[in-house]
């Protein structure tokens, strides 16, 4: 088992006061909360600082940890001496802040886990037992009645192709699951799942994989795994809800004179009528050509007028003719005398 340096995890000195520890923890908790910080390391960092805070904010545990850890550094091989915890009294886990204790490292569990479990017993929300050894030996006179509860739900974000949503598909998705390994270090485990992408799913919607979350306690069912869907950037379209947007380059004469052009859509090429005198950025709607659903989304085509370069005599001549013949000043509204 490796030694974990809780002071380094919170970025405080060994001499830090309770207030300093509290404020360091609160700052880091806001920064790394997995609901706020979408970095992939946020969750494991959040767990680490939660564990560090749990120990350092409790005077009894902190004293025990300090006594044990005087000569150790982060990552060093560590074995607690037998009966080291004699003379320390552990209360139940304080309610409130902190990471979920079942995620705590082996280092933590070995030092503080068992003593705590005796105290917190079978109340849900005490959460201080590992599911695998709940109900096992070690409870002594404190043995409680059987306890069943649904396991925790897990959450993850996945990136899919827009086409997967448009057509519906089956995809293999690999999730990285941060776990404390046997050496007490956080490591990323890979877990591959076959997921059916429902046709028409929108960004931000969730796919629920039943019973793929954390195992239940006792006879409780496992929790669910929720996958929040995001789209990979697409070379043509971007999505807003069920609607899709496409930037369509057009020539100045197509925009000015109007006419039919061919337009790609996820369902295939279609004809689009450009009205005469269309301006740059004009939005044209192809009804029902967005993501499918009961009420299918629309495809909005945004006109992007592309200028032909004046890089040959012919082109230059045509521009010069326009300059001479057309009475057009796009800056006339900006100030008089322009």
């Amino acid at each position: 088992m490796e030694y974990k340096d809780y002071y380094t995890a919170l970025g405080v000195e060994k001499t830090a006061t309770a207030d300093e520890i509290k404020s360091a923890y609160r700052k880091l908790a806001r920064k790394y909360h997995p609901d706020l910080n979408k970095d992939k390391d946020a969750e494991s960092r959040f767990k680490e600082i939660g564990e560090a805070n749990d120990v350092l904010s409790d005077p009894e545990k902190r004293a025990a940890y300090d006594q044990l850890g005087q000569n150790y550094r982060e990552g060093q091989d560590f074995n607690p001496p037998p009966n080291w915890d004699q003379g320390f009294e552990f209360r139940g886990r304080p309610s409130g802040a902190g990471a979920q204790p079942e995620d705590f490292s082996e280092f933590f569990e070995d030092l503080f886990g068992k003593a705590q479990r005796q105290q917190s017993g079978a109340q849900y929300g005490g959460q201080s037992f590992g599911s695998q050894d709940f109900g096992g030996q070690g409870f002594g006179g404190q043995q409680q009645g059987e306890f069943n509860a649904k396991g925790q739900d897990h959450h993850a974000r996945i990136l899919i192709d827009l086409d997967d949503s448009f057509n519906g598909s089956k995809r293999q998705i690999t999730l990285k699951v941060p776990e404390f390994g046997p050496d007490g270090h956080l490591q990323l485990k890979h877990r591959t799942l076959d997921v059916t992408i429902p046709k028409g799913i929108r960004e931000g919607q969730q796919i629920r994989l039943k019973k793929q979350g954390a195992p239940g306690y006792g006879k409780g069912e496992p929790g669910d795994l929720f996958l929040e869907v995001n789209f990979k950037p697409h070379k043509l379209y971007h999505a807003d809800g069920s609607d899709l947007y496409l930037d369509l380059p057009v020539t100045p004469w197509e925009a000015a004179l109007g006419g039919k052009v061919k337009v790609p859509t996820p369902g295939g090429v279609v004809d689009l009528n450009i009205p005469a005198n269309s301006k740059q950025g004009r939005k044209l709607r192809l009804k029902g050509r967005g993501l499918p659903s009961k009420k299918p989304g629309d495809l909005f085509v945004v006109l992007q007028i592309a200028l032909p370069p004046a890089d040959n005599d012919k082109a230059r001549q045509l521009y010069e003719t326009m300059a001479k013949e057309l009475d057009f000043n796009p800056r006339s509204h900006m100030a008089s005398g322009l």
Partner: protein
Amino acid sequence: MNDDILDDHETLTLEDVCQNCNLDQDVVLTYVQEGLIDVSGHNAGTMRFSHSHIVRIQKANRLERDLRLNPAGSVLVLELIAQIDDLKNQLKYFKRHN
């Protein structure tokens, strides 16, 4: 594997939500009052919730517990996060075009 899309159909009762999230009715009703979610139905008996509501409630509740917020605070945080995400998306869009 058994999976389903969490659509916005509002079919769950207040009791279902409480059970699913492990929360008391009062807590869930506070979220409704704070406007975290728009539910159909006007009183506790007729209210109907969707699965995406549950996800939002759980998020708000985690933030409260972990960062010691009150319900108004966690709802505000979630709204601001949604705004930031929205702006980031717009920014991404505009960056591609300039």
